């Protein structure tokens, strides 16, 4: 009976909007099956987490009040008075971290499977932009509770931006909405976080996914020999759904058993608490800057550090264009070496950042 009604609705809509090409496309969409198929799911998980962010973020918008006088109090309100407010908030915080984590996983998996190769250069590039936007989301969102940790982490973070020569200080002023981190910074970060970044992210995400749909999933080298595929619907889709359910359960577990703290309200006049650290996904950069000596030749250490990261980031974004082509496999392949160095560097620096 449900099928009947479904068919009738489909016929009605198809008459007006011609859905058949879309459905044909979806039914023909195939996913290559090989030993790296598992990594295909990573993008989807990231998407799932992004959707969670949007949903919980919109819910939080119902009660959150930006402003130095009201942000912290409204957070407290959400956590103590609003039904399931604690749950929505903790899911939002955990999902943010998991999303960034999976963005990195997705990025490295596409790197090591060389999915950035022609014709998918722009997919990689838009993906890199999405990474940067995700970090922007994380950085701007972190300030919104207006607690002590967030306030000082933002201060330190934007200070580092100001180190970039020539353009650093103006950019810092635009980010902060002034010379220092104040209520104006909060308002501005709120605008970034709930309006500007979501708009840009959605557009670029749409483009990114569109490219993937148009070009199909990238296949590993030498795949054309056995050409085993599975249809996206229902096989890959069901597997995707399975994974999404598990990720959701993990999220719920984290939200209930490791709820996110509120901390103390930010007081711009109190001294910074000892050992202020940015969020974990910035630690490797933070630790690098700490380890560079104050002066290297004639350049200030910090400036060298920031510029190095900017150059490295740019190089990483443009990988499809300067890729060192080689037939070698495994650890002797130059791109693999570069990728492993990057990955190991990030992991080790993050560990050092937390243990020192």
């Amino acid at each position, binding site marked *: 009976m449900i099928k009947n009604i479904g068919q009738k609705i489909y016929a009605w809509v198809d008459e007006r909007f011609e859905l058949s090409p879309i459905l044909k496309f979806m039914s023909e969409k195939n996913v290559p099956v090989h030993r790296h198929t598992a990594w295909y799911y990573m993008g989807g998980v990231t998407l799932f987490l992004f959707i969670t962010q949007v949903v919980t973020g919109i*819910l939080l918008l119902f009660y959150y009040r930006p402003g130095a006088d*009201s942000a912290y*109090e409204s957070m*407290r*309100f959400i956590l103590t*008075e*609003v*039904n*399931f407010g604690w*749950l929505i908030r903790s899911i939002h915080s955990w999902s943010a971290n998991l999303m960034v984590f999976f963005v990195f996983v997705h990025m490295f998996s596409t790197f090591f499977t060389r999915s950035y190769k022609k014709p998918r250069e722009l997919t990689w590039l838009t993906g890199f932009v999405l990474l940067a936007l995700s970090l922007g989301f994380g950085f701007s969102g972190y300030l919104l509770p207006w607690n002590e940790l967030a306030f000082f982490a933002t201060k330190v973070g934007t200070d580092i931006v100001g180190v970039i020569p020539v353009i650093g200080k103006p950019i810092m002023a635009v980010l902060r909405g002034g010379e220092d981190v104040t209520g104006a910074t909060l308002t501005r970060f709120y605008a970034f976080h709930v309006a500007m970044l979501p708009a840009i992210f959605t557009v670029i995400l749409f483009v990114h996914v569109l490219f993937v749909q148009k070009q199909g999933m990238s296949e590993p080298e030498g795949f054309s020999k056995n050409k085993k595929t599975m249809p996206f619907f229902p096989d890959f889709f069901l597997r995707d759904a399975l994974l999404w359910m598990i990720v959701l359960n993990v999220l719920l577990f984290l939200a209930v058993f490791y709820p996110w703290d509120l901390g103390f309200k930010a007081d711009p006049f109190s001294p910074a608490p000892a050992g202020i650290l940015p969020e974990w996904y910035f630690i490797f950069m933070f630790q690098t800057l700490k380890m560079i000596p104050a002066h290297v030749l004639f350049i200030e250490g910090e400036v060298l550090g920031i510029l190095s990261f900017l150059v490295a980031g740019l190089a990483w974004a443009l990988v499809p264009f300067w890729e060192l082509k080689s037939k070698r496999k495994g650890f002797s392949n130059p791109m693999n070496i570069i990728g492993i160095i990057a990955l190991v560097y990030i992991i080790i620096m993050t560990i050092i950042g937390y243990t020192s």
Partner: protein
Amino acid sequence: MKTNRRKFLNFLIGGGLLGWISSVVYPIVSFLIPPKIPEANVNSVSAGTAADFPANTGKIIQFGRKPVLLFKDDNGEFHAFDGTCTHLDCIVQYRQDTKQIWCACHNGIYDMSGRNVSGPPPRPLEEFTVNIVNDEIIIINPAG
């Protein structure tokens, strides 16, 4: 056999999906239903009607986790101070006879401006702002 199994699995999937959807929808709907207190207000607290408050009396109001001493003087003006004595943290009170703020623990005395004038208290009491809006007493923490 196979179709039975198929049907059972479909039933499980359908049932699981339904259960899952409801366990997602239920918290979201509850979340959107406004809580008892419609908004956060730890910066200001309502303390009853101004007209009903007798002159030359005081009482302790809860402000977040702090006690706040609110009193009305003979001229009908309201004053509010942090109700924690600056000596050893007892809760102070308004004395109708001496028209001063008094701490019973060690006889600490503050004047009507919160200044410590006698006894062990080392510091004055922090003042809170009192606004009367439509006859309602609103106490505001000036520290924000």
